[in-house]
């Protein structure tokens, strides 16, 4: 029980770190860290056997190693400016993140969950992860940060599914993981095309598109 609480607090901190980080490289490392923490959650909830172990290993391979590697590879090939460029500032984003946490704590008290389904703090941690991912998508200028934001939001949705995996939905989780893997792959290719067409991955430049 103590282990899962520490993991969830660490996940909440990682979610806030997404919003405060100014370097793309650090952002990639944080994605890897969140992947590793996520891989540990099925073990902490269900123990190291059966489906939990398979899920944990798959998450470690895909979210802890695969995605960060893909993102880092794209980053090094695109040769972009290594600084995260925000539409709205880092401190404001952090405030938004804390606001998201408060909102999810409030929401948890309002929603009628079956008792004992979620360990304490799991729902707020997952929802904050979705919020900070969406904030990254909306409030940052580079297409690469939007991929990372999408990953963060997906991680939140995955976290919501972890307690249910013990009840047999582990194959569903695994198939979603595969889908996300393909999505990130496609996004990497799309980023290369964006970079080729606009000579930058600044999404602001899309405004110049015409029929």
């Amino acid at each position: 029980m103590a282990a899962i609480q520490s993991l969830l607090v660490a996940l909440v901190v990682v979610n806030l770190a997404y919003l405060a980080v100014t370097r793309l490289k650090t952002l990639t490392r944080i994605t890897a860290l969140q992947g590793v923490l996520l891989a540990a959650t099925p073990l902490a909830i269900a123990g190291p056997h059966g489906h939990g172990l398979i899920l944990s290993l798959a998450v470690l391979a895909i979210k802890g190693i695969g995605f960060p590697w893909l993102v880092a590879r794209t980053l090094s090939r695109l040769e972009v400016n290594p600084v995260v460029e925000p539409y709205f500032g880092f401190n404001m984003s952090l405030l938004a993140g804390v606001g998201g946490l408060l909102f999810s704590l409030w929401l948890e008290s309002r929603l009628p969950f079956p008792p004992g389904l979620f360990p304490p703090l799991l729902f707020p941690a997952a929802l904050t992860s979705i919020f900070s991912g969406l904030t990254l998508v909306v409030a940052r200028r580079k297409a690469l940060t939007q991929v990372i934001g999408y990953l963060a939001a997906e991680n939140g949705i995955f976290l919501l599914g972890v307690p249910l995996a013990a009840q047999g939905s582990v194959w569903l989780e695994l198939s979603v993981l595969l889908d996300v893997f393909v999505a990130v792959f496609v996004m990497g290719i799309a980023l290369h095309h964006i970079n080729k067409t606009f000579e930058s991955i600044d999404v602001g430049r899309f405004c110049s598109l015409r029929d």
Partner: protein
Amino acid sequence: MNAWLHILAALVLAPLIPGIINRVKARMSGRVGKPLLQTYFDLAKLTRKGLVESHTASFMLGVGPAVSLAAVCGALCLLPSPASPAPASFGGDFMLAAYCLGLSRLALILAALDTGSSFEGMGASREAAFSALAEPVLFLALLALAVDAPSLSLSGMLGQGLSGALAPERLFVPLLLFILLLTENCRIPVDDPNTHLELTMIHEVMVLDHSGPDMAMISYGAALKLWFFAAAVTLSLLPVQAMPPLAAWAAFLAGVALVAVAVGLIESSMARLRLLRVPRLLGSAGALAALSLVLTVWR
């Protein structure tokens, strides 16, 4: 008696902390370094020297250092000793402690503005800006401590130790107090105490016009403030209230020394942040403090 022992220890041992920090920094860069007691020698030398005052300055230049030192001593009186509550302890005294430190800073800022030097005015404005950002962090961290405390005084809030692995967010409070120590005492990564370029200085540029006994009061006040924060970090980590008095004192003194070593290690391994990046550091600290408070209240 026991309660005043901490004040006595702080007054006597505080100048040792800058000595430890400098020794660690020197060893990390392969030098022998100044003697551990260098701050005592400096203080003795400064008190023997005469006072040089600017013609344009008013009485504030002389009053500033004395008020600053007195205010820090006042804040120290509210800090609990490892084995007993503080000499002066009442509900809400953490507010008084925070504002004693604020008063100490205000006195130095006014003295710096009083000299009429543009550099000192610039340093004063930076000091005021950063401390305004640090204050919410301090209050949020203290409130997070106050939630589970038996009383709303520093003596009740500190010395409880961390309440186990079930509440990992409590771990952030010592970390936040440590970041505040670095900010409030003008250490790297916020300010470099050794810099001599006026354009980049913050605290050191404010005290350029002070000399002799005034300067001694400022150095001594700075050492006491460093002691205050180092003691607060140690007391928020260690469950000294549950220990026998002698063990508590030993653990406390070792903790304070370790905090000084940690400051030295950080100063040797980190570069100073750009001025514009400092608000971001304090903003992140604020978010962490808010997180800690929210989770503590929520549990």
